[in-house]
């Protein structure tokens, strides 16, 4: 499915989707076309000419055309550009079902959260060059970091020397202490760091942890490359 919306504006939704199925040598299957159109919320537009549809609907027609011939490998180039949030969810549900049924999906997207949610393997392209292809879980493990933020009861101007060995940094004008660690490491250092804080008499009123997203990793990789 191409990124550009190239459709015959004067054809109906039903005709253009059926045409795509025929082009790929598949026998007519109205039930399958109906299923796709219903899943993509296009059923009530099946007799409309494409020129009367909105941009988001046209994009869904392109997806319906791509799915019409029951492909085993599906290339989706920015499939959700211009599609509203609710319909985007429906579209991803269809794509997820296809993936679960064994269809190989190659997705290019600028919405990294979509890739994080959907992908088994992730490739990163920077300046036209593939800089990495990795199993998503492995990628998250390799490049992902976990961050613990402690909200202090009393503001600190400088980090006490006793805490210097614990990879801590002051943030938010001394109101917070940030600790980066690797959950997969043999020793995360969390216990030792908390003991050192206690010994130094530093107390905190709240804490939160945050895992790097695929987007953080992507931005890190691309900026590293450039």
């Amino acid at each position, binding site marked *: 499915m191409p990124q550009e919306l*190239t459709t*015959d504006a004067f054809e109906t939704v039903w*005709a253009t989707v059926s045409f*795509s*199925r025929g082009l790929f*040598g*598949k026998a007519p299957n109205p039930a399958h076309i109906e299923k796709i159109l219903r899943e993509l919320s296009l059923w009530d537009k099946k007799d409309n000419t494409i020129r009367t549809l909105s941009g988001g609907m046209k994009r869904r027609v392109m997806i319906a055309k791509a799915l019409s011939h029951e492909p085993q490998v599906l290339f989706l180039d920015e499939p959700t550009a211009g599609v509203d949030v609710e319909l985007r969810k429906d579209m991803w549900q269809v794509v997820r079902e296809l993936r679960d049924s064994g269809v190989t999906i190659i997705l290019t997207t600028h919405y990294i959260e979509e890739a994080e949610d959907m992908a088994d393997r992730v490739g990163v392209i920077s300046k036209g060059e593939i800089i990495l292809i990795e199993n998503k879980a492995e990628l998250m493990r390799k490049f992902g970091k976990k961050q613990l933020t402690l909200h202090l009861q009393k503001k600190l101007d400088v980090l006490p020397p006793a805490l210097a060995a614990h990879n801590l940094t002051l943030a938010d004008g001394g109101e917070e202490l940030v600790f980066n660690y690797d959950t997969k490491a043999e020793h995360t250092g969390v216990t030792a760091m908390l003991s050192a804080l206690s010994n130094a008499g530093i107390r905190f009123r709240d804490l939160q942890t945050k895992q790097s997203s695929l987007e953080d990793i992507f931005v890190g990789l691309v900026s590293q490359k450039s």
Partner: protein
Amino acid sequence: MNLRAVQAIYFSEMARTKRTIWQSIVSPVLSTSLYFVVFGAAIGSRITEIEGINYGAFIVPGLIMLTLLTQSTMNASFGIYFPRFTGTIYEILSAPVSGVEIAIGYVGAAATKSIILGLIILATSFLFVPLHVAHPLLMLSFLVLTSVTFSLLGFIIGIWADGFEKLQIIPLLIITPLTFLGGTFYSTSVLPPLWQKITLFNPVVYLISGFRWSFFEISDVSPSISIGMTLLFLVASLAVVWWIFRTGYKLKN
């Protein structure tokens, strides 16, 4: 062969004809009927018979041929040019469809439209003039061969053209004048000897002459030469289409 793809292209094109029936069918039939009224009934009634044939009847094969040639080229050229213009050609080129299958789909549909048009005009002409077809099978063969050949030519034009203006150039500036000068309204035997010779360089003369022979058994050139020339045009057009798909000319760049 991916017959379903051929069917898909063919029926999609035929559906386009249905959507544009006023432009595709009604308009050419009406225009040709006007020729019958003007040249057949109004002016034709003052013209004596040509080689023993009523003038109104004499022009029927030429008028059918005029419609076949212009409509075949225009329909086929638009059929392939429009997907190129809108970008939908990518889908056809990325599908498991060979060049031969693409050509059969588009050319087949354009030729079918022309054959339908030719038959409607023939049926209409019976309303205006006394007409008898001496060799119906040969007449149908000419009809089909000419429609296919000029649909192939239209297909070539549709691939060569890079704008809507170029689509019109060959049908309007070459085919229509050649058809008018190729004996649509007269027998080339009435021309001065020099012009009779020059006329033989006009390929449309052979098409009209052979087609007219199938109606009245009169012709400007031998019917076998007409059949030979028609087949020659067909082979030449097939060769160009084959070259286009072999090289990807204007399709894959």
